[in-house]
């Protein structure tokens, strides 16, 4: 983990309430796609955890949806301003587990961003990728062309049928020959993907205190013991998790 001030390079609206921000700063603590950063904001006590969409030497792209005071404040910031960031948190996805497989890379809503670098890494490793991107509605959709530009086959779903397949990501998954998947999205989406029995990796969301494993605020039950979503996760194998109450 690194802590520092990261300069905003750009901050623009991508879709309904959805923004893309590029930050400049130390990326040395980022190792895997699906890790996150924790951002301090003026007048708000706890940091805001946001998943990393893409990173390269010294630059981090995040995509966030305005859902409250913190993300509202972020959306109003301009290039040149600085953010106090804890970088390189969480385990991230292990793309090596999909070697020799047909991989589905599945994102739902604000679960889409971290899947971008997953797809990019897989394709770089020679894995054939089908990206399944689920959105509530057409106005909320983003990054479809970016996934296509990576060389992924892209399937889009929308809850209301205004874009792509009307229905859920699981409906789109059924029509593919994928035998492994990576996913990030709302809990019900992860649950229905888990129920397919296909092996893969799931990225979870939970209210966090610290983001680095100290407070035990985000602990969940798994089949391999109690795990902190922030430190032991947010990514867990399908074989490790249970959705039973």
């Amino acid at each position: 983990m690194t802590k520092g001030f990261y300069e905003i390079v750009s901050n623009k609206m991508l879709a309904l309430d959805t923004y893309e921000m590029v930050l400049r700063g130390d990326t040395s603590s980022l190792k895997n796609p699906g890790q996150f950063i924790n951002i301090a904001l003026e007048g708000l006590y706890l940091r805001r955890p946001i998943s990393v969409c893409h990173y390269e030497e010294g630059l981090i792209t995040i995509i966030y949806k305005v859902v409250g005071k913190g993300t509202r404040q972020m959306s109003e910031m301009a290039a040149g301003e600085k953010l106090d960031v804890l970088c390189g948190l969480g385990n991230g996805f292990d793309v090596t587990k999909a070697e020799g497989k047909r991989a589905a890379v599945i994102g739902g809503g604000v679960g889409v961003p971290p899947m971008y670098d997953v797809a990019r890494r897989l394709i770089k490793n020679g894995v054939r990728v089908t990206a399944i991107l689920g959105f509530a509605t057409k106005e909320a959709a983003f990054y479809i062309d970016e996934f296509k530009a990576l060389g992924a086959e892209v399937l889009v779903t929308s809850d209301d049928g205004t874009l792509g397949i009307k229905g859920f990501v699981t409906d789109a998954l059924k029509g593919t020959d994928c035998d492994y998947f990576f996913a990030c999205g709302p809990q019900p989406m992860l649950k229905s993907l888990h129920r397919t029995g296909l092996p893969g990796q799931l990225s979870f969301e939970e209210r966090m205190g610290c983001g680095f494993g100290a407070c035990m605020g985000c602990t969940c039950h798994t089949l391999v013991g109690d795990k902190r979503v922030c430190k032991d996760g947010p990514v867990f194998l399908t074989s490790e998790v249970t959705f039973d109450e």
Partner: protein
Amino acid sequence: MNNRLETTLSGIKLKNPVIPASGTFGFGLEMAEFYDLNILGGISLKGTTGEARYGNPTPRIAETREGMLNAIGLQNPGVDTVVTHELPAVRKLYDGVLLANISGFSVEEYVTVAKKFDKAPEIDILEVNISCPNVRHGGMAFGTDPSAAKEVTMAVKEATNKPVYMKLSPNVTDIAAIASACAEGGADGITLINTLLGMVIDPRTGRPIVSTKMSGFSGPAIKPVALRMVYQVAQAVKLPIIGVGGISTADDVIEFMSAGASAVQVGAQNLVNPFACPDIIADLPKKMDEYGIKNITDIIGRSLTL
């Protein structure tokens, strides 16, 4: 080393008065990835019970202005695992003062856990949490009644030869009465305060945010309450005090020590800034210079006569 910052608790020397508070620092192992723990005056380890506990369902965390609420519910691996795994691991990384923080649901459980930490060579001080607001039938129930507080103190004192610090709850009418009862029970020191019982509700749905509905409020917002209680307890008992509650700066440390604390704990701030303790320790000598303070111990309790 900078001797100006040195302080003592029951004859045990601390290189400085700054101790991360229990529950905000795990068993030190995560934080050791960020900095060398040896700069810390002490470490109060994660609250430990007789058996392993998962704690409360999530969400366990909520935010408020200048603070946060938590209802972890004493998640810990149980005293046996702590003694065999966590203590040797943290001791390997840290040569300063280690406080075991013990919790229980009965006097017997406090005693069982205390006996096991008494035998652990890594532990210097037992801090007895009679103030957890996030569990039923235990924790805070012992810290809101003077006779129960005295009973736990006496029982733990009998179970150990190590110094016993009772960690008090602010959720009482008369904090001095509880502290006095602990003193009568033989306590070697007092740690205060634990979190204030609080609540956050989602205005859209009316639903409480934290799963337990009510939970423990901490952070800078509670500092004036904590400071006032340290001041009251310093007048009521002759025991060393560890002041805790909303500390996030070197100035806060100086205020708590002026009110009567011999050392302090930093809690919620560790979660917001993992470097909170090293930052405060680095700032302390500068603030002392600015205020003309030679040694940090010179100011302990100075506000009591002003």
